[in-house]
């Protein structure tokens, strides 16, 4: 008994001396497009992370953060080069970011090769945390998979009584995966996708596509990205289309919403974040972000802000000391926290489980701002949505990844 207390005393003294040493350094690399067509989105991503750092005196969990931003120019090979630079030269503990799915697919192997943590704070390519996860032991995703919000979207559309839907989506992996998720759930619920249109990514004129949209459809489901999102609703309205328009998250996220006009009023989309979430946490976030950067935060900003918060939590548990890549991933995966977007935790494939919001574009005043503006008002919340929806992991992973041809268009006319 006496012996034990002595050992305990010694251990206690040792701990007391060991822990409160001087602040440790945490080196974080950040890769995002800073030039090129996606530069603005890259800026939104960086701003989100930076805001959290600024609010916490440049520290995460007691560690002094060295934050190094590198420009990917929106090109996967450049992203790889920059990640290599961050790891080999700047000796970062982890790197964050990557916008397009292609960047995620390019960066994940770098994390395996150089045994460095890669936090996917935006890149949504489904398979990285699904069928390919085993190849990438050092990645974790803090954002979403492309199909994750669109499973509930399919359910919601079905519950609205829509029977026949036309999809029009940007023709690349992200567009395929978003459409696939929507179609799968919508059809399993009894709806029918009767036509799928694939304009190329970056289409500026929908003139050739709009007249081909079936007039007798109950709704049009769109997946637009960047400037495409602005163009389609305008042209659809000009063409006199009265069919309700619903869409994937990026068709109406806050990155494009402020540039839109009244033509998008009433359009519905789904995502894990809306700037109009009516909680004190989000109100504070929107106000802080807007006063600093002059615009409403998009999900790109929120996702990186929350990523910083998650790293903060993990580092707090380690009292500011870097726990090593494996431990870091494990502890991050074990987190359960109240983020700006709502409660978030991780599934066993290192993808977040979170609220999915069905949102309707409305013109109104929010958070005490004087002008009427467009906001993504939440009309329904699906809590704790994971990447496999209600199919269960094993069953879901047996089917191929969503693509242009999967699910097949059984009801196309």
């Amino acid at each position, binding site marked *: 008994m006496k012996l034990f207390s002595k050992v305990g005393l010694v251990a206690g003294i040792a701990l007391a001396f060991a822990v409160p040493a001087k602040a440790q350094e945490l080196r974080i690399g950040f890769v995002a497009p800073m030039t090129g067509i996606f530069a603005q989105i890259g800026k939104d991503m960086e701003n989100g992370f930076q805001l959290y750092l600024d609010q916490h005196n440049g520290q995460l969990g007691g560690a002094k953060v060295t934050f190094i931003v590198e420009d990917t120019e929106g090109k996967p090979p450049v992203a790889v080069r920059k990640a290599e630079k961050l790891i080999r030269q700047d000796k970062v503990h982890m790197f964050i970011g990557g916008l397009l799915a292609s960047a995620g697919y*390019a960066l994940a192997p770098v994390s395996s090769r150089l045994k460095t943590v890669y936090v996917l704070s935006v890149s949504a390519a489904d398979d990285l945390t699904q069928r390919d996860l085993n190849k990438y032991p050092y990645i974790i995703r803090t954002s979403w998979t492309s199909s994750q919000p669109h499973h509930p979207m399919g359910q919601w559309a079905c519950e609205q009584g829509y029977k026949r839907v036309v999809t029009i989506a940007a023709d*690349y*992996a992200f567009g395929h995966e978003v459409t696939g998720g929507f179609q799968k759930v919508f059809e399993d619920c009894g709806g029918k996708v009767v036509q799928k249109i694939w304009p190329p990514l970056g289409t500026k004129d929908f003139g050739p596509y709009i007249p081909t949209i079936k007039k007798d459809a109950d709704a049009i489901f769109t997946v637009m990205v960047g400037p495409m999102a602005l163009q389609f609703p305008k042209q659809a309205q000009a063409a006199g289309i009265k069919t309700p328009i619903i869409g994937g998250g990026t068709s109406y996220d806050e990155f494009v919403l402020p540039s839109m006009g009244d033509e998008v009023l009433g359009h519905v989309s789904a995502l894990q974040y809306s700037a109009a979430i009516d909680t004190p946490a989000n109100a504070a976030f929107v106000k802080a972000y807007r006063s600093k950067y002059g615009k409403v935060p998009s999900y790109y900003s929120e996702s990186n802000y929350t990523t910083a918060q998650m790293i903060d939590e993990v580092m707090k548990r380690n009292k500011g000391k870097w726990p090593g890549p494996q431990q870091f991933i494990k502890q991050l995966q074990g987190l359960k926290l109240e983020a700006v977007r709502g409660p978030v935790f991780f599934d066993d494939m290192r993808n977040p489980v979170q609220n999915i919001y069905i949102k309707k574009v409305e013109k109104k005043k929010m958070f005490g701002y004087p002008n009427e503006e467009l906001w993504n008002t939440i009309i329904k919340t699906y809590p704790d949505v994971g990447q496999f929806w209600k199919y269960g992991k094993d069953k879901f992973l047996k089917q191929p990844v969503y693509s242009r041809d999967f699910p097949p268009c059984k009801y196309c006319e």
Partner: protein
Amino acid sequence: MKAKVIAVIVAIIALGAIAPFAGSYVLVLMTQALVLGIIAMSVDLLLGYTGLPSLGQAAYLGMGAYLTAILASTYGFGLGGGFWVVVVLGMLAGAAAAAVFGLFAVRAGGVYFLMITLALGMCVWGLAYRWNSLTGGDNGINMPGRPEFGISLSDDLNYFYLVLFFFVLSLGALYVLVRSPFGRSLVGIREREVRMRILGYNTWLHKYLAFVIAGAFGGLAGVLWAHLTGIVSPGDVILTTSVDVLLMVVLGGPGTLVGGAIGAGVVTFLREYLATVVPWWQYVLGAVYVLTILYLPGGLMGIPARIRRRKNAT
């Protein structure tokens, strides 16, 4: 002339000697510069010796790189001793593509040649971008790993020496080529094609062969590039790669072979380090190009000659 050859040999040996002591990122950059050096030399064969400014050289890099990536990821081929077969196949693929494109391009000269090679290069980019089932489209293809045959190329130093080996081989082969009668006739074509034709040379054939040979070295660079970056994507095959390579040659000094390699080294290091220092690094690089063209028509390789001339004048 002899002094120059010795200088190059000394430089290459020095490069090989300092490699083990270079930081791991610097080593990657050195490897990258050598691969780009190979393709820059292939462009120099066209621009510097034959007088054909090609803006589509990335297409052959793409042929080599995609061939390597498809063989490795789909068939698991080329990750052992098969690597050497892939090198040959990559060169053949580059040469074959150039042989087809050459039929269109070599008919024209000057600006028209520039435009045609640009357009053909974009065709290859378009294929890489749109042919999803083969090339993975926008996502590109991830390489499963570097080859291993007795020595493991996953070790960056080993890979550097392999690339250096191919670089020396390419430099040697092209050096012999440009000094051969065939190379001399290329220079003749550059200087005055009509006269060469009157002298009885089939100038079309000469230019066509130079174009195909340049394509083969482009393919070789592609094979090495694929294993260097670990990913092959349309971003490599895009026009800017071709432009970069052309500018490397102009910067280093056209018609000198090593000039292209020096240009590749300067651009690679300048780009990486400038980008970390200033966000508007592209302007700096642009200014360097403009100043070179205005004040150093012979490129960096032209500097010694200029100094000598200055000395003689005074």
